[in-house]
C-alpha cells in the first residue's frame, strides 16, 4: 500500500532527485548538437513514457473503483505506444545519419570512383 500522505523526508529526497536530474539534464542536453535535435526530442519522449510503470501497477492492482483499472489500462496503451514507437523511430532516424556516404570528388581531384 503506498502512502497517501507525503512523509516530508521522502518529499525532500524526491526534490533532491528532481534538482540533480534537472542539473544533469541541462549539462548533457545543452551539448547535443542541433543536428540531432529531432532524435533528441523523440528519445526524451520515449524516456518519459516510463510513466508506463505507474500505469502498469494501476491497471493490475486491486482498485477501489474499477474505473481506475480502466483508466490505467488506457494509460498503459498510450504510454507503451511512446515506449515502443519512440525508441524505434529514434533508431530509424539515427541510422540515417552518416558521416560520409560518397567519395568527396572535390578533395581528391579526379580520383573519384
Amino acid at each position, binding site marked *: 500500500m503506498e502512502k*497517501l*500522505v507525503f512523509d516530508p523526508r521522502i518529499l525532500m529526497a524526491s526534490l533532491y*532527485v528532481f534538482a540533480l536530474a534537472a542539473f544533469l539534464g541541462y549539462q548533457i542536453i545543452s551539448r547535443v548538437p542541433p543536428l540531432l535535435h529531432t532524435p*533528441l526530442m523523440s528519445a*526524451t519522449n520515449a524516456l*518519459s513514457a516510463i510513466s508506463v510503470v*505507474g500505469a502498469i*501497477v494501476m491497471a493490475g492492482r486491486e482498485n477501489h473503483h474499477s474505473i481506475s483499472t480502466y483508466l490505467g489500462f488506457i494509460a498503459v496503451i498510450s*504510454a507503451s505506444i511512446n515506449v515502443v514507437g519512440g525508441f524505434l523511430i529514434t533508431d530509424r532516424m539515427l541510422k540515417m545519419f552518416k558521416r560520409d556516404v560518397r567519395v568527396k570528388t572535390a578533395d581528391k581531384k579526379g580520383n573519384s570512383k
Partner: protein
Amino acid sequence: MNIYIEITYLAASILFVFGLKGLTHPDSARRGMLLAAAGMTAAIVGTLFHPEIVRYHWIWIGLLIGGVIGAAMSIWMPMTSMPERTALSHAFGALAAALVGIAEYENYGGSMGKLKVGALGFEIMLGCLTFTGSLIAFGKLYGVVKGTPITFKGLNIFNMGLLAVMIGSFIYLAYDPSVAVAFYTMMTLALCFGVLLVIPIGAADMPVVMSLLNSYAGLAAAATGFVLGNNVLIIAGTLDGFSGFILSVLMCRAMNRSINNVLFGAFGSVSHTAADTAIGNMREVTLEDVAVQLAYAKQVVFVPGYGMATAQAQHAVRDLANLLEARGVSVKFGIHPVAGRMPGHMNVLLAEANVPYSVLYEMDQINPDLPRTDVAVVIGANDVVNPDARDNPGSPIAGMPIIEVDRAKSVVVLKRGTGKGFSGLENPLFFKPVTGMLYGDAKSSITGLAQAVREV
C-alpha cells in the same frame, strides 16, 4: 517497496542518462539509445513483479495494443511527417500521466494528504493541457486545423481568467483534497486551456510550441513520479522536461523572440506596415540559366526550409548535390535552427536522403562562408533568409539571426508562386539584383535542374 524492483529502476535511471549522453555525437547515438531501451525494458519487467499487481490481463492487452500501434507508427510513418508524429507522441505521453493521476484520485481522493494532492494537481494540469495542446498542434501540422493563428479579441484576457480559475481550484483542492468538484473543474479547465494556448499560434512558430509541449509532457511525468514516490519517473520526466525547455530557449533565440511573444503574440495575424515597403522587380530565371551557374560554380550552398519538406524534395536535392560534387563543385547545406516545423527537422530529412552530416552546417558555421559562395540555392525557405531581419529595425522579425544568402555572389530562390511567404512578410531578398527567382514546385524544379546540369 520491493528492493529488486527498486534496483531495476536505479539501473534504468543510469542507463537513461548514458543513453542521452550518447546523443551528444551522431556516432555514439545509436548505441546510447540501445542502452536506454535496455533500461526501459528492465524497468517494465521489474514492474511486472510488483507485489500489488493481482491480475495481468489488462496489462498484457494494453502493452500489446500500445506496442503494435507504436511499432506500426514508427515503421510506416514517412520522415516528412516527423513533426506530426512527435506532436501525437507528446499527446500520448501527457495522456498517460494525466490518466494515472485521475485513477489515483479516483482511488484515494479525499484521504490523500495535502502535499500529495498538490503534486497530483501539477500532474493533472500539465498532463491535460499538454494532451489537448498537442492534439491541436498535431491538427495544425496535419492540416485539419487552420495553420494560421486563430484568435479573437480578448483571447489573452480570457486565457488569463481561465488560468486564474484553474489555479484557484487547484489551491482549493490542495486545501481540502476531498472536494472532487474542484478536482474535476481543474481538470476540465486544463483541457480547455491547452486548446486555447495553441490555436492562436501560427504554424511557422511550431518549433517553439513543439519544444514547450515536450517540456510540459516531461514535467507531467516527473509530477507523476512525485505522486507515486517513484524516482525513475522523476528522473526521466525531468530529463525530458529540461530537454524541451532547452530546445524552446534555443528556438526562441533563433527567432530573437521571447517565449511570451511566441505564446501570446499571435504572430503573423498582425498587419505589417513597415514591412510592405520592399519595391522593385523580381527577376525570373530559367532552369537552364541556373543549371549553367551551378555547373560552373566552385561552391554551392543549399538553404532548405519547410517548402522542401512539403514538396518531398530532399531526394531530388541529394541527386543534384551528387551531380554537382561529381563535377568538382563543393556543396554545402546551411541549416537554420527554426527551418521546418520542429527542431532539427531539415537535418533528419537530408539524412534520410543520404546526405552525409559532414556537409550539413549550422547557421553560424555557414554564414562566414557565404561571401565565398558562388550560388546560394534557397529551397522553400523564406523568413530564415529575410535580410529585413538584419537591416530593417522596423520589421516584425527584426533582430532574428538569418542565413545571409544575400552575401553570396548569386542567389537562386525556389518558390511555389509569387505570393508572400507563410508569415505574410515581404522578403526584400527576392527583389535584390543578385537574386533570381525560379518558380514552381520545389521537387520538379530540382529534378529539372539535375537534368539540365547533366546536359551542360
